[in-house]
C-alpha cells in the first residue's frame, strides 16, 4: 500500500516546517536518533496544525497528516507503516488490534475522522509480507448505541474495519478495584484484541477533573457508576493497572482537535486546540492533556485537586507512567500540513514560476489537499475533471499572490453532490501554463 507520506522526505520537511519545539530533555535531533529508546524518558508528542479545524469541522486530510507526523515523532521511525508496526511487538497477520474510542456523549466524542486516521495508519503496516488486514481492526466502545449516535457504523462482518460495542458482554470474572465497586471487563478487549490503541478525547470532568486516556476505560468496565467516589481516585489508577488493560495498551492518543474546558463531560466542544497528543505512557499523555486544558482556561486540572488520579496512576503501587514533566521528553510539531507542502526545490520554483505538489492523501475517500507555490503573482484556475472529460467543479479562479497556497477538494461536484469512486484530474491553469494531477477517489 502506498504511503501517504514518504520516508525521509516527511522528516526533512517536518523539521524544516516546524515552527518550534518544546523539550524537557535534549532533543535537538529528535528525529535523527531513531534508535534511541523512547522508554528512557516518557516521550509525549503534541502535533498542532492551524488548518486542522474550521468552524468545529475537522479537515480530514490535515488530520491524517497530523496523525502520521505524530506516530513518526513518537517512534522516531520515518515511515508511517513501520512506525505503527513498531508499537506492536510480535504482531502477526492474525493479530487483532482494538481502538478504544470515547462515544459516551455525541456532543463531544472521539471524532470519526480522527479514528479514520488511526485506521489508515494501521493499514499501512506490512505484516507477514502483506498490508495489515483491516478486518483485524476493531473500533469499539461501550455499546452499539453509543457508537451509532456518534456517527460510527456498526460492522461485525468479515470485511472492512469492524466496529461494535461491548453491549454488556463482560468477563464473568470481576476484579477488585481500589476505591470502587468490583468491575468486569469488556470481552472485546479480553477475548478478541491482542493490542489496544487508546483513542480518547480532550474533556474536563466535574468529578475527575479531566477525562482523558485513563478515564476512557470507564467505557471498558461494567459498572462505571461505581468508579466515581473521591474524584475517581484511586479507582482510575487501579482499573488501568489491570493486566487486561495495562498489558495490551500500546499507545494513548488524544483527539484534541476540539475540547471542553467547563462543565464537562457532557458539553459541546468549547475550544479548538487543533491538536493530537501521543504517548506510550498514559499518565504522561494525560498530564500533557491536562496542561492543554489548563492553557485553554480549564480550572479542574490540578494534580493535587480534582485531577489527582493522574498523579496517583504514576505512583506506587500502580506505576503506570509518570506525571513528572522532568521525566518526559515533550515534542511539539507545528503545522505539519504546511511543511509537507513546502516546495522541495527552489530552483524549479524560480525556473517555472510555480511548483505544484502531489495532492495528498492520494488515494483518498473524503478530502484531498491540492497545494502549490508561486514565485510571483499569477492568475490561477483549478478545476476537477472526471476521466470521461467532464468538468466536475472549479476549486479556485482568481489572482494569487507569491507564496504557498492550498485548496481542499472534498469529492463533491459543483452542486455539492458526492461524486463516485474513480480517477479524477486536477487541472491547474497558472498564467499561460497548464498542468494536471491524477487523483484517485475511493469511496
Amino acid at each position: 500500500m502506498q504511503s501517504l507520506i514518504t520516508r525521509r522526505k516527511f522528516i526533512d520537511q517536518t523539521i524544516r516546517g516546524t515552527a518550534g519545539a518544546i523539550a524537557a530533555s535534549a532533543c535537538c535531533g529528535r528525529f535523527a536518533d531513531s534508535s534511541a529508546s523512547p522508554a528512557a524518558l516518557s516521550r509525549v508528542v503534541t502535533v498542532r496544525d492551524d488548518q486542522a479545524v474550521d468552524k468545529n469541522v475537522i479537515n480530514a486530510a490535515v488530520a491524517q497528516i497530523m496523525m502520521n507526523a505524530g506516530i513518526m515523532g513518537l517512534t522516531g521511525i520515518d515511515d508511517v507503516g513501520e512506525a505503527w508496526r513498531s508499537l506492536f511487538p510480535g504482531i502477526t497477520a492474525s493479530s487483532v488490534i482494538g481502538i478504544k474510542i470515547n462515544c459516551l456523549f455525541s456532543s463531544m466524542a472521539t471524532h470519526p475522522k480522527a479514528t479514520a486516521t488511526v485506521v489508515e495508519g494501521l493499514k499501512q503496516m506490512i505484516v507477514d509480507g502483506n498490508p495489515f488486514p483491516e478486518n483485524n481492526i476493531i473500533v469499539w466502545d461501550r455499546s452499539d448505541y453509543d457508537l451509532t449516535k456518534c456517527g460510527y457504523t456498526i460492522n461485525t462482518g468479515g470485511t472492512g474495519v469492524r466496529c461494535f460495542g461491548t453491549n454488556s458482554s463482560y468477563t464473568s470474572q470481576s476484579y477488585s478495584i481500589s476505591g470502587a465497586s468490583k468491575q468486569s471487563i469488556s470481552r472485546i478487549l479480553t477475548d478478541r484484541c491482542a493490542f489496544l490503541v487508546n483513542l480518547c478525547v480532550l474533556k474536563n470532568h466535574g468529578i475527575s477533573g479531566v477525562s482523558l486516556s485513563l478515564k476512557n476505560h470507564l467505557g471498558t468496565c461494567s459498572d462505571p457508576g461505581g468508579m466515581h467516589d473521591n474524584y475517581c481516585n484511586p479507582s482510575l489508577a487501579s482499573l488501568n493497572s489491570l493486566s487486561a488493560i495495562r498489558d495490551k495498551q500500546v499507545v494513548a492518543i488524544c483527539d484534541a482537535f476540539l475540547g471542553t474546558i467547563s462543565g464537562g463531560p457532557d458539553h459541546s466542544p468549547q475550544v479548538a486546540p487543533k491538536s493530537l497528543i501521543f504517548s506510550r505512557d498514559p499518565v504522561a499523555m494525560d498530564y500533557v492533556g491536562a496542561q492543554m486544558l489548563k492553557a485553554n482556561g480549564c480550572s479542574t486540572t490540578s494534580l493535587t485537586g480534582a485531577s489527582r488520579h493522574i498523579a496517583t496512576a504514576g505512583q506506587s503501587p500502580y506505576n503506570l507512567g509518570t506525571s513528572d514533566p522532568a521525566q518526559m521528553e515533550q515534542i511539539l510539531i507545528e503545522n505539519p500540513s504546511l511543511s509537507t507542502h513546502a516546495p522541495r526545490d527552489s530552483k524549479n520554483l524560480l525556473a517555472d514560476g510555480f511548483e505544484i505538489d502531489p495532492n495528498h492523501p492520494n488515494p483518498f475517500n473524503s478530502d484531498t489537499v491540492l497545494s502549490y507555490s508561486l514565485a510571483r503573482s499569477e492568475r490561477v484556475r483549478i478545476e476537477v475533471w472526471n476521466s470521461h472529460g467532464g468538468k466536475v467543479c472549479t476549486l479556485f479562479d482568481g489572482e494569487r499572490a507569491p507564496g504557498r497556497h492550498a485548496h481542499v477538494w472534498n469529492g463533491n461536484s459543483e452542486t455539492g453532490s458526492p461524486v463516485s469512486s474513480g480517477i479524477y484530474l486536477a487541472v491547474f491553469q497558472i498564467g499561460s501554463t497548464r498542468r494536471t494531477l491524477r487523483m484517485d477517489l475511493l469511496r
Partner: protein
Amino acid sequence: MKNYKSLLLLTVLLLACSKSSVEKAKSVSPEDFLVKDNEISGWSKAGTYWTAATAGDLSTYINGAAVIYTSRGFVEGAEQEYQGTILGGSVSVHVQIFDQGLPENADAVMEEVYKGLISPAEWVDGPGERAVIERLPLAQTILFQRARYYVKLDINDGSEEALNIIKAFANNVNGKFTEAGIE
C-alpha cells in the same frame, strides 16, 4: 349521624382530588416539555434522543455521569438533539430535562453543575427560578431550574445568533412548564 355522613363524603372527595393530582403529576414527564419540530423556526429533532425512568436507564445513556442525578433524587430524564443552521453552518442544540422529584434536589443538581463552570453569568430575566448562561468560544450553555426540574441546554456555536437560539429553546421549555401548571 348526619355529621358523620358529611365527614365521610368530604373524605371521599379529598381522596378523589388527591388521586387526581397524583395522576396528573405522573402523567407529565420531562419528554413532554421538549421543544417540538420547528417550534423554533428552522430547528428540528435530529441525532441523540433518550428518555430514562430509572437509574439503570440513565446509566445506559450517560454511563457514570448519571451519578450526579441519581444521587439527588432522580425520577425521570430526557434528552433531545436538534439541528438547524446559523449563518449557513450546521449547528446542534442539546436539551436535557431532569425531574429530580423535589425542587431542592433539582437546585442541588444545578448547583453541582454550576460549580464546574468556569465563567457562568446569571441570566437575570431568564426562565425558571434561577438561570445561568456560560458563553465560551465555540459553545454556549444555559442551565435553569424550575420546581423539581433541572434543564440544561447546549449549543455548539459561540455567536450572538446562537445565543438567541438557545435562549429561545430555554424559553420554549419554560413555557411548557407554565402550560402544565408546574410552579
